[in-house]
């Protein structure tokens, strides 16, 4: 489709795009490796069963790489509103829903292109470090580990699309970025000082970050505030709401 080609051309001719993708991969891999390197089997009370969630640890890079995914999503509209290039875009393609769909597709492709190799590399690298540190590991490819790794990739995609929706609504890069980072990072921080267990549970079940990152758990699932797929579903709901709000704003308001 023409719109897709145009949006792809826009994305690939921007100086920041390759850096953002590299950043996403780098953070995913290095943080996971650091997490793995910080543990050694001799710290375990019982070497046969350390009770660590190895898959989840190897994917710990998500804590930071999601910020990069947010930036990618925000820039899709933020750049155009900031430079007023949005007028050209809308003049070239008056069907605004198609523009939104085109941007969403390109953001999705970019994030997936970085997330898939990043997650795979992080998982593999962390496993070699764990083995070197003496931990006995479960099989590399299990239903749980595929869910954790695949879910991490999905999480990144959802978060980027969430940011896209917010940026179509807010139109200002800094404002949209702060809003999305606040939504993601503020609730877990709040949960630290809130001692009321009811409130803690509420926060963890409905906040996009804590609910969404439940997908990474492969062991000790009963201790989670919400099940892995349901948690990712919570994030998907937030994303859907943001996209709808952004679409309404983009379609209805003056360019």
């Amino acid at each position, binding site marked *: 489709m023409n719109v897709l080609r145009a949006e792809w051309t826009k994305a690939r001719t921007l100086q920041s795009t390759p850096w953002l993708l590299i950043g996403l991969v780098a953070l995913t891999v290095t943080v996971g490796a650091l997490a793995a390197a910080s543990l050694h089997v001799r710290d375990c009370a019982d070497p046969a069963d350390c009770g660590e969630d190895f898959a989840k640890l190897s994917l710990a890079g998500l804590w930071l790489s999601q910020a990069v995914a947010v930036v990618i999503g925000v820039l899709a509209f933020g750049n155009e509103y*900031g430079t007023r290039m949005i007028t050209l875009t809308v003049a070239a393609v008056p069907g605004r829903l198609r523009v939104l769909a085109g941007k969403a597709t390109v953001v999705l492709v970019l994030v997936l292109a970085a997330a898939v190799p990043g997650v795979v590399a992080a998982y593999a690298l962390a496993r070699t470090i764990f083995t070197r540190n003496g931990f006995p590991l479960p099989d590399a490819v299990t239903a749980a580990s595929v869910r954790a790794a695949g879910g991490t990739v999905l999480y990144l995609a959802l978060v980027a699309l969430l940011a896209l929706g917010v940026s179509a609504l807010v139109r200002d890069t800094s404002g949209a970025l702060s809003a999305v980072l606040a939504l993601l990072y503020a609730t877990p921080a709040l949960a*630290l000082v809130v001692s009321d267990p009811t*409130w803690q549970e509420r926060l963890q079940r409905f906040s996009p970050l804590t609910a969404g990152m439940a997908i990474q758990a492969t062991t000790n699932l009963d201790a989670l505030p919400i099940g892995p797929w349901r948690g990712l579903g919570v994030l998907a709901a937030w994303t859907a709401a943001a996209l709808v709000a952004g679409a309404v704003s983009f379609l209805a308001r003056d360019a």
Partner: protein
Amino acid sequence: MSFRHLLRAEWTKLRSVSRWLLALAAAAVFTVAFSVLASSAGTTNFEGGVAVSPDGKPVADDFHFVHKPLAGDGSLVARVAEQDNTHADAMAGIMVKNGATRGASYASVAVTPGGDVRMMADFRDVDARTGTAPRWLRLDRSGTRVTTYDSADGSTWREIGRAELAGLPATVEVGMFVTSPGELIVQRSAGSTGVGERPTSGRATFADVRVDGAAGPAWASDDLVRPGFGKDPASVSGSTREAAGRFTVTGSGSIGLNEPPDDTVQIGLFGTLAGLLVLVPLGVVYITSEYRRGLIRTTFAAAPARAPVLAAKAVVLGGLTFAIGLAAALVAFFVTQPILRDHGFKPPMFPEQSLTEPRVLRAVIGAAVFLTLLTLLGLGAGAVMRRGAPAIAAVITLTLVPTFVGSVVPVAAARTLMLITPAGGFAMQRAKPATEWLVEPWSMIGPWAGFAVLGTYAAVALVAGGWLMRRRDA
């Protein structure tokens, strides 16, 4: 252009953008609102049964007491023949107390395996000297004054200290006591945190016990322990065995101030989390908007030295943020303390915090400084990167992510995170001392350490930004 003119120019720039003024106001409102939210969603889970000292503070007063009544003035001498090393702060000694009840006024002198002879009165340390078991201890009571001594041989006494126990009645209990504090166990592995206490049982043997004065005839043996302490009563309750004038006593617990580490002041100031989410972008945009619109060229034309422009911005925005942050912090403090009290954070476990206490005042001012330093960090990051998005993402991520990552990693890693990222700045809002008992990682470092970390980040960012401003093309 003199610096004064630059300041005036930057102030005009700032106040003429209504969105920015709105952001400052919003930051203050969010700080207060979020603090209220954090306070309303908290309850404490400390069980009852806390003891209260004569001046109303929560205390631990758990030990095994072998005692008899003494009417009027008198003295007690005993030799601590042996003491098991169950804990560096285990105590074996003698005490005069206003009854065998927890929280009652007392004065004591005891030896510890750690190597001191310690005098305490009313849950405060009075003085200490070096010495271990075996040791002679002596306690003289005269009206409300108590003086304690120790000796190596039982004849030459050296004074340890004196105390005034106001309101001490004529008849008091005097005797021997043994106690041993629990071991702190903090287990943090990747993904879970467990904080607990394993009780220890101290044991000591007393000999050559002598009471001078109008004392009762028989020794009573009482276990002062808070209800529900430990799971296995056999492991914590004390005991006394007397054989031929030698008393072998076991006891568990600790004596001293027992303020819980939860800091109501900090909970009431936690709204700065919301405030910083508005102020950091403001600091960034304050400089990057000039680059975006090309206004920077006009600014540099007016001030060719360039770096003073950044300094002027820092002064103007920093000063404004501090003023607004301080106002918000004060409002948040006064509004949240009653809310917290309603949610169980009340005396005696949580004494009322007053702004007149230095540490409380320090925490409130610390909250304002915290917000200011983060705003300045944003300003510096914006000057370095010249584009809003990466600067905002970097500062917010580095400030927030370590807080909750630090709550699920081992203690050493968490403390390191707090000392190397701006997240450590949250420690500036704590009024109570550093502790390892809480989930929040920033409670592990002291407020001045937090100030140092965040201050360094802001300073480095601003200096780097100023230097790059001079070097790069506009």
